[in-house]
């Protein structure tokens, strides 16, 4: 077959990657009440996305599940509209809502066709400013989400992940504690309302709007959220709690009814404000941060022990951790642990080859471009940045740092931060 082909396929086509990227323009607009709106005009399709982010994550709750339930219950009834009316109206306008909560932040997002934006924002205002947390809807929520949590906790990956994070931060720490299904029974409307009043207000939030934006849409947001101050909550004060890691370095959580075990290996590291963050982000990518990573190549593509293995750097407001996770056949647990160890040792002992170094640099560059492409992703990235008090220039800085990194620095960082005996290992499954 090859004799008839004229094209020389043995040589890869030329490619190039930008050293500078054109950053999306963000229009930062101060509202009359002090609330900040960040508007990103991505303009081609007639849709809009509006997010409002509150400094109201689970770290601020004094009882399990309160922060998440308060957020989810915002749409379940307001002074003006009952929950069914809210659902009817949003569905009728083809709008949809996403809520998202993590340890530090809560966020509610509305997706709308441009022509219905004003109507959707009117409902959004009711939801965000005047929720009433009705008992009837709370009962339904509590019952269903309790069952959902029971199902989640039947997954070995969830068990291993939670056990690890508890071991790293301490099971009473706001970053290391996890709710039990029974905690749903302890919720009531009063507790939710109290949490809402203490954490939801124009003083404790910021807003991001993306899509086809003109002055009209800015005015709409401003009319509904930006005029008078609303809500009683002061700006959050994040009080730091001391991390108390478990001295146990290996934990086994037995679960005998499955065919696979989940492995979670990790250590407390740092967040995005640390001077070595970009460097370690790079090291983590090499190790297990993308499909072509060393862990993936070795443990999946060479040995076939797992469907997927990843390492990830989780970053929170006042800490962070690195975690390697995989679900593997029970018979591969030991072999996988050995190979993870080998890959970490290889990073510490051998300088990364030139090819791999530039491959990972290029891959990360491409990923940065992906992270700001399209109306949804651009807003997500913008929110991530605002949460660390940064703007899109941070991405530029990240790209600069990534492109500058050397093999020596990778070696140095791996030795400084990845010593095997600093990791905690959790296995959920058969022994």
């Amino acid at each position, binding site marked *: *077959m090859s004799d008839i082909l004229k*094209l020389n396929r043995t040589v890869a*086509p030329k490619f190039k990657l930008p050293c500078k990227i054109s950053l999306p323009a963000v229009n930062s607009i101060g509202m009359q009440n002090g609330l900040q709106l960040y508007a990103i005009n991505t303009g081609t399709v007639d849709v809009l996305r509006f997010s409002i982010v509150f400094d109201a994550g689970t770290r601020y709750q004094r009882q399990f599940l309160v922060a998440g339930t308060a957020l989810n219950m915002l749409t379940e009834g307001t002074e003006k509209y009952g929950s069914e009316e809210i659902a009817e109206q949003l569905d009728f306008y083809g709008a949809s809502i996403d809520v998202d909560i993590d340890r530090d932040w809560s966020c509610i997002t509305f997706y709308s*066709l441009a022509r219905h934006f004003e109507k959707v924002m009117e409902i959004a205002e009711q939801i965000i400013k005047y929720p009433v947390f009705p008992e009837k809807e709370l009962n339904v929520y509590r019952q269903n989400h309790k069952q959902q949590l029971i199902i989640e906790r039947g997954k070995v990956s969830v068990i291993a992940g939670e056990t690890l994070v508890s071991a790293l931060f301490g099971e009473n720490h706001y970053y290391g504690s996890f709710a039990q299904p029974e905690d749903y029974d302890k919720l009531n409307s009063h507790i939710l309302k109290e949490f809402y009043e203490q954490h939801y207000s124009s003083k404790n939030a910021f807003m991001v709007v993306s899509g086809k934006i003109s002055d009209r849409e800015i005015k709409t947001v401003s009319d509904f959220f930006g005029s008078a101050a609303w809500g009683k909550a002061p700006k959050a004060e994040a009080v730091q709690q001391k991390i108390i890691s478990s001295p146990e370095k290996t934990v086994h959580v037995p679960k005998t009814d499955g065919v696979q075990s989940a492995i979670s290996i990790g250590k407390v590291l740092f967040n995005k404000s640390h001077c070595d963050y970009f460097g370690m982000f790079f090291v983590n990518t090499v190790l297990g941060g993308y499909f072509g990573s060393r862990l993936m190549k070795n443990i999946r593509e060479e040995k076939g022990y797992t469907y997927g293995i990843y390492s990830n750097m989780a970053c929170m407001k006042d800490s962070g951790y690195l975690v390697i996770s995989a679900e593997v056949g029970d018979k591969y647990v030991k072999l996988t642990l050995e190979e993870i160890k080998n890959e970490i040792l290889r990073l510490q002992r051998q300088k990364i080859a030139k090819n791999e170094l530039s491959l990972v640099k290029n891959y990360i560059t491409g990923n940065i471009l992906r992270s700001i492409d399209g109306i*949804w992703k651009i807003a997500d990235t913008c929110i991530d940045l605002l949460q660390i008090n940064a703007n899109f220039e941070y991405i530029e800085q990240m790209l600069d740092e990534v492109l500058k990194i050397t093999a020596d620095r990778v070696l140095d960082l791996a030795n400084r931060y990845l010593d095997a005996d600093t990791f905690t290992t959790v296995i959920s499954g058969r022994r």
Partner: protein
Amino acid sequence: MIEYKKFILKNGLTLLAHRDRSSTLAAVNVLYKVGARSENPHKTGFAHLFEHLMFSGSKNVKSFDDELQVAGGESNAFTCSDYTNYYITLPKENIETALWIESDRMLYPNITQHNIDTQRSVVIEEFNQRYLNRPYGDVWLLLRPLAYKVHPYRWATIGKNIEHIKNATLDNAKCFFDLHYSPCNAVISIVSDMEYGKIYKLVEKWFGEIPARPASNCKFPQEPQQMEPRSLTVERKVPLTCIYKAYKMCRRENPDYYVCDLLTDIFAGGKSSRLYVNLVKNTNLFARANAFISGDIDEGLLTVSANLLPNVDVKKAEAAIESEIEKMRTEKVSEYELEKVKNKAEASHVYSETDILNKAMMLGYYEMLGNIDLINEELDYYRAITADDIMKVSKSVFADEKCSTLYYKSVN
């Protein structure tokens, strides 16, 4: 509205190009018109296993992923019953890298014993992770063979069982490639900020010299009409009992397909939907309820499913579901409710046009269906649906003798 231009190369490869001026990336999608329905009933799971093998490099591309990643790209793929879909995004300047590696694996993929051994093992772990080691993971492994007795939809894309994957050989893989991975059995779709003529030239450069091969002419049996209600009860260690009622529905090309889609939105599209309000919220029987269509090319399934709260009587729960179905058969939906689900269909269509990769996938998908114009005309079909259509289709779909029911019971 997605504007596009269609080209057909001499070797039969179809190209669809769409220009998106707003993105710095290019999306390259390659769809092969082969899926689990083309498999030998004794070698199921093969289309999906083969998808894994396609990432093992090719004659001139030692590592598919390395060559792509070094050009800033990322890729993945999925297999379904009707087709297999490979996709890439990368900086638009580097589009030729995507064309190089995709064309090279259409020419000579690196199918070796070592690769097949490893990917067999990876797929077995995938089978375990996604189907056996997850609560409710095996639902479709049970429901498909209940609903289909003859058609290949009776097995899931992962395969009937692990043994089939274990037995896959190198020869099987080579035959599968020769039979199904020819240019005329593929559609490449590209979304990028580039003139159509230029895209065509580049695709012609990399794919044009791939020799034409005969199209696969895979015949598989069509499912005879189901004439009796079917049911299966299983017990599993899961927290909640679930009921799945899967009804036979029309083929993808039948206009009733859109009616079925709207039907499921009336049932379960959002928090104002009937199943959520009437079953989850206003009875104490269910934790969740859902309705969805399978979206298959041949006769598909319209499934209504529900998770029962603990200690709820299965018969009582099923009666509640059936009363909602009965209402759909006997009472006309209001103009308001119809308008609502149409608006929702329109909105999700518009939302799907905001992402370059999604647009590339849609172009490939509609071309595979055999009518690319549907990509922009489909909304008109939804808009034209009347309350009478909904009732008529409900009456024909929701018949006991077309239903397969799975009782997935929780035991401790």
